[in-house]
């Protein structure tokens, strides 16, 4: 028994090391000065802490034609905030109707919406680009916001629907008898008790929109509107960009969702689990 537990701890710690290794590499490399950076010593701790690589990754180096990530970071911020808020509200409205105002055909509509969550986006990319070009949203941040709202509908609807189905329908009925109408019930009863679901949905949407790569790549080919993931990929793909700058860039890119994870991990976890359809 004692040995068994020891083995379990050994196994758990071994894998903790596995999961932490890339973060270790990210940190030690990005904190090294340019002179110290060498692939052969990648595992070593930095002798002196330097934030040179962060500065270069953020500001770029116009002399060498190196674009910094600052603009793209802000692009992602401008993109993620409205997209997250709007898609959360859309999901909340859908979830409210689908659980509390079930009409004929609701049973069909929900799986039809849900299916959109699983499709490979490659299967809609070509028409998407064509349409965005038509409506002049191609290669703009509003265009990207719009795309994320549309393709966020399935998951946000799913999470809100699962949450609202735990609200007893008597609550809605009591409000009906008290004299509230459709909008009144939503505003005065449903919204005020939706905060946990909003937290879950907004964290989920924030993370996935921030981390998106495909839409950013295809819908925003102009570097000045690219989100940070696309810019990071470009930075890391250039042969002349030093390794420590790449790592600093990766860390900058990973930071916002990591902060959310560290401070709001509980909601993040709930989002993950509801995203797995375990509630369905």
């Amino acid at each position, binding site marked *: 028994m004692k040995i068994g537990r020891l083995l379990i701890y050994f196994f*758990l710690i071994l894998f903790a090391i596995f999961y932490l290794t890339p973060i270790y590499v990210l940190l030690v490399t990005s904190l090294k000065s340019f002179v110290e950076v060498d692939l052969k010593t990648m595992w070593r701790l930095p002798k002196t802490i330097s934030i040179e690589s962060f500065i270069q990754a953020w500001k770029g180096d116009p002399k060498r034609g190196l674009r910094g990530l600052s603009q793209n970071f802000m692009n992602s911020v401008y993109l993620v905030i409205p997209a997250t808020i709007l898609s959360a509200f859309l999901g909340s409205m859908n979830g409210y109707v689908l659980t509390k105002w079930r009409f004929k055909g609701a049973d069909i509509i929900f799986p039809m919406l849900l299916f959109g969550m699983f499709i490979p986006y490659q299967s*809609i990319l070509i028409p998407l680009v064509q349409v965005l070009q038509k409506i002049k949203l191609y290669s703009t941040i509003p265009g990207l916001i719009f795309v994320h709202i549309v393709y966020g509908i399935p998951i946000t609807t799913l999470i809100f629907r699962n949450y609202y189905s735990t609200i007893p329908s008597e609550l809605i009925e009591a409000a009906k008898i008290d004299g509230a109408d459709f909008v009144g019930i939503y505003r005065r009863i449903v919204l005020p008790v939706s905060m946990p679901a909003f937290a879950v949905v907004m964290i989920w949407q924030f*993370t996935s929109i*921030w981390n998106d790569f495909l839409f950013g790549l295809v819908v925003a080919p102009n570097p000045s509107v690219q989100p940070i993931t*696309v810019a990071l990929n470009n930075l890391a793909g250039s042969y002349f960009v030093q390794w420590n700058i790449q790592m600093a860039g990766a860390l900058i890119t990973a930071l916002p969702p990591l902060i959310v994870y560290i401070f709001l991990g509980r909601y993040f976890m709930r989002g993950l689990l509801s995203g797995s359809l375990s509630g369905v």
Partner: protein
Amino acid sequence: MQKDKLYSFLFILPSIILIAIFVYFFIFWTGFISLTDWNDIFPSFNIVGLRNYIELFQNFRFQISMKNTLVFTALFLVSSLILGFLLAIFLDQKIRGENIFRNIYLFPMAISFVVTGVVWRWILNPGTINNPVGLNQILDKIGLSFLKSGWYTDPKIGIKAVVIAAVWQMSGYVMAMYLAGIRGIPSELFEAAQVDGANMWQVYRYIVLPLLRPITLGAIIILGHISLKIFDLVVAMTGSGAGFSCDVPALFMYDTTFRGNHFAQGASIAIILLLMVGVLIIPYLRYSLKSEVKR
């Protein structure tokens, strides 16, 4: 009453319209494009039947990328499920610092695939025979030199190296799903099994595992569809690799369409990809929604 019904319909109508256009009509449109001869910059909609598909199946790169995707999916699913399950049952043994372990296992889920790809590209960089770097260097140090390899630079390994990074990112998710599942099993069941004389191993074998079957199914669906669609990670980590040894259909589609301007060809790849995902997802959606109605 009537007014409320109208409002409720108006509430959900925008979403219905958006999904109808941006999912269903777009899929239909992609399907249509895949039957045309739009294979350069200028749109052209002459129907050529299944020619794009026939050419596709004869295409060397497509064959490799299909094979890669299947290998990747199989390896990724099996390793993530096993690792996730083991971590979950070990964490369920009243472990000290369970929270810390759990957070460490799960945090990669919060990170972009692009970041994961960039980091693992360097860790799995093999270096040279005399100057091994990254993981190879560690293997040398701890006396496991025989495990050294060229990783993704070796065409024989190729996509399998990407599996390591994907498992790193997603196995924590599987762990979380299983752990939530185990915690959801009423403790009376464990106690009843123990009273019935089951040992720890038997409890997991005969009680926990069967009860977790829906979770396993859910995990297979989630990981499966992510895996079939995998794109960001491959782009950031390896690209299509030596001799396309790391290529996947999603990447092939992107290159064909948006770099090569072979829109009809690209559309046909997209449709094949959609069919693969559909085979996995549609039965599951039907199954879980039906069982929900029963409840």
